[in-house]
C-alpha cells in the first residue's frame, strides 16, 4: 500500500521533473534548475543549534547566543556555497561508445566552468547508479564518465541526470536535474551456442554460399587463361573441340560462414539476435570473413573491426530503425 503510493509519487515526480528539463546537448546550470535543501546531517546540525539557542535563553548566557547565531550563519552560508558550487557549471554531451545489453554505458560528459567559478566535489549520477566525481578547480574543463546500466537492446537514451554537491560543509545539498542528450547503441546480449550444430544444416543453398577456389569439389568450367595450371585443363573437352577449358574446384568449407537469421528456427527475435551477436563476436575474433542474413537485410561476407561494428549495429537496431 505504502509502496505503491511511493511509486506513484515517484512517477509523478519524475514526470514533473521531465516536464521542467528539456532535452539538450549542452546546458549551463543556473538558479532556475538548482535546488538546495538541508541534508539529514544538516537537520541534525540545526537541531544542535536549536539546543544551544534554548540553553542560551534559559541560562541567559550571552555568548551561547553568539554560538547559536554563528551556527545558523554557517548554515545559511553553506546554502549559498552549495548553490554557488553548481551555478555556472556547463555540461555538454559527447558521443558514447556502444555497449552490450546488460552492461553499463559510460556516458561521457564534458564539464566546463564559467570564468568566475570553481566547482569542487561535484557528483554526477543517474538514479540508482553510483555517482561519478568531478572537480573543476585547477582545470577549466574536464571530462567525466557517468555510468548507466542499459538493459534494453537498441538505442539507449540516458535518463535524467542528477548533479549533486554537498560541498563545503555537508549540511546542505545542492542538486540539479538535467536531461542531456546522451545516447548510445546497445548491442544484444551475446548468448553462446555451439557453431558445429549448424554445420550440416547448410541453410543457404549453394548460390549464396561463400566459395573459395579450392581443390575438393568440382564446380564447373571456365575459359583457360594463360598461366593456369595445365593439370586442371579439361582435356576431354579439348578433345571434343570445345577449346581450352579449365575444371574449377571449390572448397565448400566457407559456405557455412553466413550467419543466418533462419539458423535459429523457433527462437524469439531477441534470442535470435543474442545468438547472432555471439556469432559475430566469435567469428570476428577468429578473423574469419563472414556475412549476415536477416529478414530484409543481407550483408556480404567481409572481415575486420569496421565490418564487425556494422553488423553489431544492424543487430542492435533490428526492428527499431
Amino acid at each position: 500500500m505504502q509502496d505503491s503510493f511511493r511509486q506513484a509519487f515517484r512517477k509523478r515526480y519524475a514526470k514533473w521533473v521531465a516536464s521542467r528539463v528539456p532535452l539538450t546537448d549542452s546546458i549551463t546550470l543556473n538558479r532556475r534548475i538548482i535546488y538546495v535543501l538541508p541534508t539529514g546531517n544538516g537537520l541534525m546540525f540545526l537541531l544542535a543549534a536549536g539546543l544551544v539557542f534554548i540553553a542560551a535563553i534559559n541560562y541567559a548566557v550571552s555568548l551561547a547566543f553568539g554560538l547559536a547565531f554563528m551556527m545558523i550563519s554557517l548554515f545559511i552560508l553553506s546554502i549559498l556555497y552549495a548553490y554557488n558550487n553548481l551555478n555556472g557549471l556547463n555540461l555538454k554531451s559527447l558521443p558514447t561508445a556502444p555497449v552490450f545489453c546488460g552492461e553499463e554505458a559510460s556516458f561521457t560528459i564534458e564539464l566546463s566552468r564559467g570564468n568566475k567559478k570553481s566547482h569542487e566535489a561535484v557528483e554526477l549520477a543517474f538514479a540508482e547508479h553510483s555517482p561519478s566525481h568531478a572537480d573543476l578547480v585547477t582545470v577549466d574543463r574536464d571530462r567525466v564518465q557517468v555510468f548507466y546500466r542499459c538493459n534494453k537492446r537498441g538505442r539507449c537514451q540516458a535518463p535524467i541526470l542528477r548533479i549533486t554537491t554537498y560541498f563545503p560543509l555537508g549540511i546542505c545539498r545542492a542538486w540539479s536535474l538535467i536531461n542531456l542528450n546522451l545516447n548510445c547503441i546497445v548491442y544484444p546480449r551475446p548468448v553462446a551456442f555451439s557453431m558445429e550444430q549448424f554445420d550440416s544444416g547448410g541453410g543457404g543453398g549453394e548460390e549464396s554460399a561463400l566459395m573459395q577456389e579450392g581443390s575438393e569439389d568440382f564446380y564447373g568450367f571456365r575459359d583457360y587463361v594463360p598461366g593456369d595450371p595445365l593439370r586442371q585443363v579439361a582435356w576431354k573437352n579439348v578433345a571434343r573441340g570445345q577449346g581450352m577449358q579449365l575444371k574449377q574446384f571449390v572448397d565448400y568449407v566457407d559456405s557455412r560462414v553466413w550467419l543466418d537469421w533462419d539458423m535459429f528456427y523457433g527462437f524469439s527475435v531477441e534470442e535470435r539476435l543474442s545468438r547472432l551477436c555471439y556469432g559475430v563476436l566469435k567469428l570476428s575474433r577468429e578473423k574469419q570473413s563472414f556475412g549476415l542474413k536477416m529478414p530484409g537485410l543481407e550483408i556480404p561476407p567481409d572481415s575486420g573491426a569496421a565490418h564487425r561494428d556494422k553488423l553489431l549495429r544492424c543487430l542492435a537496431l533490428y526492428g527499431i530503425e
Partner: protein
Amino acid sequence: MRSEIDYQIPRSALSWVLLAVMLVVAPQALRMPLWISAIAVACIVWRWLIYAGRLGYPGRSLRIAIVIFTLLVSVSQMRNLGIGLDSAASLLTLGFVFKLIEMRHKRDIYVVISLCFVMLMVAFLYSQSAVSSAYIALSVLVTTTAMVALNRSTLLDNHSGTFSLSLKMGLQALPLAVVLFLVFPRIAPLWAVPVQNNGAGTGVTDEMSPGDIAQLGRSSELAFRVQFENSPPPLHENLYWRGLVLDDFDGVTWRRTRRGSSYAQAASLNDFQWSWEDRVRLSDDVIDYNVIMEPTQQPWLYGLHLADPMNRELFQSRNFEIFNNGLITKRMSYDLRSYRGSRTDLLLLDSVRRRSLELPTGGNSQSRALAQRLRADTDSDLDYIYAVLARFQQNEYFYTLNPPLLGDNRVDDFLFNTMAGFCEHYASSFAFLMRAAGIPARVVVGYQGAEYNRYEDYMMVYQYNAHAWNEVWLEGRGWVRFDPTAAVSPERIEQGVEAALADDPAFLEQSLFSRSRLGAMDWINTLRLRLDAIEYEWNRRVVNYDEEVQFELFERLLGEVTEEKVVLLFASLAVIMVAGIAVAIIWTEPRTRRTPVDRLYLQLGRELDKIGLGRQRGEAPNDYCRRVCEARPDLAPLVQEITELYLELNYRHADLQASRQRQLQSRLRSVLRQLRFRLMPVLKSQG
C-alpha cells in the same frame, strides 16, 4: 546508491575531527572528576589507534557494556553531585567520547560534530571570559574545518587549503552572526533552570570568625571591577565596598541576622514603620558607577556607602545591603548610585538598638571592664570611640595575616595578650568594646581599596582587598563608619593591603603571578593591566549584552520601540546581510592561482602588446612565438628563448631540481629584462 557500510572516512578529515574533539573535551576534562577525564583521554587515544590501523572498532558486547556503564555512572553522578550542570556536563562528555570510538559512518561523524557544538555551549556556561571565548572560537573554527575536510574532494584535499576555506567561511559568517546577536529579540527563559554550580561560594561570607578574612587575603582572585561613570573615582581611603552587616555575636563569630533580610519582606513586618526616604538624609554628593562582579554563588553585592541599585532585579535590605534576586552564578553587571556622606537611621528603632547592643552573657570580663573604665573616663560616646582607637594606635598592636591562635575568651586574649591580628580581629573587638560600653555597634564586611586600570579607566578589586570594619550609631549622626584597622595600620587604608603587608610572607602565598611579587617587573604589570582591560571591555560590551542593553540599542536606533519596528528592523537587517553575503560569494571571482613562472610569461605578452603584438586569448606559447618571430625577426632570439624557458619550467618542472628551477627562472627574468630594453628605443622613436 552508495551504501553507508563501505563509507571510508577521509583520513585528513578524521584528523581534523580528532583535533576538534580534543579541543572541545580539554576544558571539560579539567573540571570533571579525574576518572572521567581519564576515560575521555582513553577514548580519544583508542580512536586515534583505529585511525592508525592498530586497533579495531569496539565489538557488540563492549558497546552494550559501555551503555550500561554510562547509565550506572549517570545514577552515581546524580547522587553525588545532584542534577546540575556538573553532572550533566560530565555525562555529556562521556556519551560524546563513547560515540567517538564507534564512529564509522558519515552520519556518526555529524553526530560527533553536532555534539562538539553542544559541548562548546556547555563551556560557555562555565566561563564567558575573553580568553575562553577566544579558545571556543578556535574550537568552532577547527570543527568547521573538520566539516569542510569531510566534504572536500580527496584530490584537492590539503590541510592548509581546507583550513583557509573554513577560515574564510567563518569570517563571512561572522557579520551575520553579529547582526543576529545584536538584533535578534532576546527571549525570557522558557522554564526555570536551577543553575547550581557545586563549587562553594567565594568571597566574603555572612559569617565572620577570626581568620576568615585573612584567608581571603591570600587570594589574588578578582572580586569585581568598577567603573565610575561621570566623576573621578574617590580616593583610596574612601573606597569602602560595603557588603554585609553582621550584628549577631556569640563570642566567637559575627553573624548576619537573617530575620527580615530583604527590604520587600521587611516592609511587611510590624516593626518596620518607616519608608526608605524617612530613614535616610540624602546628600547632594551623587556618584554613579557600574560594577561587574565575578560569580560568588552568593546573593549579595557590593557598593559604596548608601548605594541605591539602578537595576530592577536588585533590592536593598534594611541595613542598606544590596542583594541580587538569586545566587550570582555567572559574571554580573549592575549599576549603582551612591549618595556620599548621607546619614542613615537618625532615629534608631528599639528592636535594632537592642540587637546592636547584645553581647554574650559571660566571658571576656577583662574587655568588659576596660570598656566600663574607658567610658567612665570620657565625656561622650565619640570621645570614648577615639579613646579606643587611640589605644589600638598607641599600644603594640600588629597587623598580620598570620595571627597567633586565640583562647576561649577571644576578645580578651586578643586585646591583652596576642595583640596581633587581621582586620576581623580589630573589627570584632572594637564592636565588642562599643557594645560593652552601651553604644550600638556592628561589624561590616566587604572590600576596601582597589587597583586602578588606567588603560580602560576602571578599578579592580581583588579578594585580598577583603576587609571588615565597624559602624557605630551616634545620636544625631546615625550610623557612622569607624575602621579600627586604620588606627593600627594606616597604610592599609591609604595605600592598600599590598603596602601594608609587603613584608608578610603569607600575603598572596597561593598565587604565583601575584601583583606584589611581579610588581617590580614593570612590563609584566603593564601586560597584566592591559589583558585585564581587554577582559573588562569584553564583559561590558559582549557578555553583558542582554535584554536591557538590547532595548537601549533599539531605542537609540528606532526611537520609540514597538514590536513591528523591531521585527521590521530584524527582518530587513537579516535580508540585507544574507543578500550581501550572497552577492559577495556568487559574483566574486575566485583568484586564479598563477605560478610565478606564469606571471613572468604573462609579462612577455604585456611587453609585446606595446608594439601591437600582444598575445591573444588562448593562443598557445609556440604559436605566439612563431607569430612574433615572423613579424619582428630582430626580436626572435629573445622571444624564442623566453618561450623555451617557459615551456621547460612549466611542463617539465616535476623533473627539474629546485636549484635548476631557480636558475631557469632567474634566466627567464633576465631575458625579459633584455627584451624590455630592446623595446624601449622603439617606444621612444614612436613617441
